[in-house]
């Protein structure tokens, strides 16, 4: 069983436009059990002639017993989709949408607090659990291999880079999760690190951070006190100038703590094996695992 998705995952995909359909299709192709789609004005039709599409999330959950929601709706409607999925009681809500206004996330995160749903994202690539062929999001399935290293990252494509390095070195992955590049998001490094620490399938962890915020420092603090498994870390943005947003809304150097160098220092102090560059994350893990 994966830490969040696995063979019991019953996937609902909300937002079946061009990109959403393409990605939903590849989730299915990977082996994920997609049980429902939600899209306006397509009530009663079927996705790929097999998966029923509903007008609302509540109807879809009621009819199909979906237990994981995946959101591809445009940024302006993403917070509303998250709330709709949370209201429908989905235990895990994964929001891929990029560019959600940060104030929408302020109220949405406050609204979710105390409710039983976990949010992953927004602006994240989702997660994937190769051993059960469960993919919820946009991480390309073909680069993964079954194994015992957990991967968590703020980035999308950089995660793929790291996973590919691991796979190329014969190091398989347990679960791979992107927490997203926005400053305000649901599931954090600390949440995932705790899950990996308690996960029987995971022996070691790759954690990829970047400039901006202090989430990596919080992760370092948690690793120091609560993580017994080996952690390989990498921080990107060493060549980024201060005050400029590097794509991700959260990747801005606003002060000393937001610097890559500060984060690297914090991780090293917590006993994390920090890769010198993102190009050698796989090599670092191989070294740590003694391969």
């Amino acid at each position: 069983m994966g830490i969040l998705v696995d063979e019991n995952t019953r996937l609902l995909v909300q937002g079946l436009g061009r990109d959403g359909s393409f990605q939903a299709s590849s989730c299915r192709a990977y082996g994920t059990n997609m049980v429902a789609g939600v899209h306006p004005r397509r009530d009663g039709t079927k996705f790929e002639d097999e998966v029923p599409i509903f007008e609302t999330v509540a109807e879809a959950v009621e009819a199909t017993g979906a237990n994981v929601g995946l959101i591809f709706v445009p940024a302006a409607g993403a917070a509303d989709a998250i709330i709709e999925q949370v209201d429908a009681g989905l235990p895990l809500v994964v929001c891929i949408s990029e560019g959600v206004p940060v104030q929408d996330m302020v109220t949405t995160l406050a609204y979710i607090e105390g409710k039983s749903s976990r949010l992953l994202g927004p602006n994240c690539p989702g997660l994937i659990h190769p051993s059960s062929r469960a993919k919820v999001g946009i991480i390309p399935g073909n680069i993964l291999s079954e194994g015992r290293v957990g991967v968590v990252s703020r980035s999308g494509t950089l995660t793929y880079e790291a996973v590919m390095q691991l796979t190329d070195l014969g190091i398989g992955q347990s679960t791979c999760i992107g927490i997203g590049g926005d400053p305000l998001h649901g599931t954090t490094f600390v949440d995932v690190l705790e899950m990996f620490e308690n996960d029987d399938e995971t022996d070691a962890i790759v954690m990829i951070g970047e400039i901006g915020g202090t989430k990596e420092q919080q992760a370092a603090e948690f690793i120091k006190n609560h993580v017994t498994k080996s952690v390989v870390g990498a921080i990107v943005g060493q060549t980024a100038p201060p005050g400029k947003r590097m794509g991700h809304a959260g990747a801005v150097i606003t002060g000393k703590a937001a610097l890559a160098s500060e984060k690297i220092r914090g991780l090293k102090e917590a006993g994390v094996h920090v890769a010198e560059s993102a190009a050698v994350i796989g090599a670092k893990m191989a070294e740590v695992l003694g391969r």
Partner: protein
Amino acid sequence: MNIHEYQAREILESYGVSVPRAGVASTPDEARQLAVEFGGRVAVKAQVHAGGRGKAGGVKLVQAPDEAAEAAAGMLGTNLVTHQTKAGGAPVRKVLVAELTDIADELYVAITMDADAKAAMVMASSEGGVEIEEVAANTPNKIVRHAVDPLIGLSPYHARDIAMKIGVPTDLVQPATGLITNLCRVFQELDASLVEINPLVVTTDGRVMALDAKIAFEDDALFRHREILDLEDSEQNDELEQKAHDAGLAYVKLDGGRVGCMVNGAGLAMATMDITKTAGAAPANFLDVGGGAAEDKIAEAFEIIVSDDDVEVILVNLFGGILRCDVAARGIVMGAQYTGTQMPLVVAMRGTNANEGLQILADAGLNVTTVGDLGEAATALTQVLGADGSNA
């Protein structure tokens, strides 16, 4: 998105925040007339999107209308270079002419978004008129912080508490409370990313007002504030950044590099920038082409990189996810054909339709070195840049 001080001042005024009387001048004569209107003693302030104007000669305090005209003449039409501008400075097209006030005390108040608090954060200090980073470094205990509750907003009692803690005189606590509350409304109602009043002044005649104002807006929320978009002065932006912005690309021009970077995904883009160091070089830009970029958008991104005079080699690093590598490759070919560039390309393509993408590039006959991953990219870059890449 940034706006000019005079625009920020107008927004604040419309929200009931006290500001000094002021007007905008585009000519020395207009500046003179405004100075006359305000009684002669005025500040003439160059309107550029950068801090550090004072030290750079962009703010002049004058005693008479003729001096105001003279100060304006010295600024208008020039490029002001401050420690926050690019080397060439920022063009001054307008000056703000504001009445001078007799200042009893300079305070500081700002509102930003705080990721840890998951809420807007009011930051205030008794130390106004200097950069808050200095205060944070030297006397951090002089900064008051209060996270704004998402349900009830900034409670008046908290605004009052902040006003008292930064030393607003007792009889001015009430107007200061209102002012801080209104700043918070500006931040929240307009989806700002920063509202900064530095200094917030207490005048000798017993008023509190925003003497200087900086407002920046959350780019991701501009779609619901069309009226704010109209305030943009694109002339203040870097030309390439503006072009990328208009094309919907996340692009940042970096000084001193010669490796143009085209990547999808912000994290991978930063990793790609960082990797140029391994090759002894430096990145010329950050560029994330984004998720579902179509051919023409990729082509435009390519053209922007090529049109950067600093760029000698282009490092393409794409990992297909929502983006499909074949689409990206066609875009690159389109951009290369349009610009006619012969510049060497180091290309890594992985993920969705990567092989098709590489095939398309190969078929187009571009000067491409294909690599398998980031590590190989560094090696290839070193070769392309020449043995002594460190001279780059």
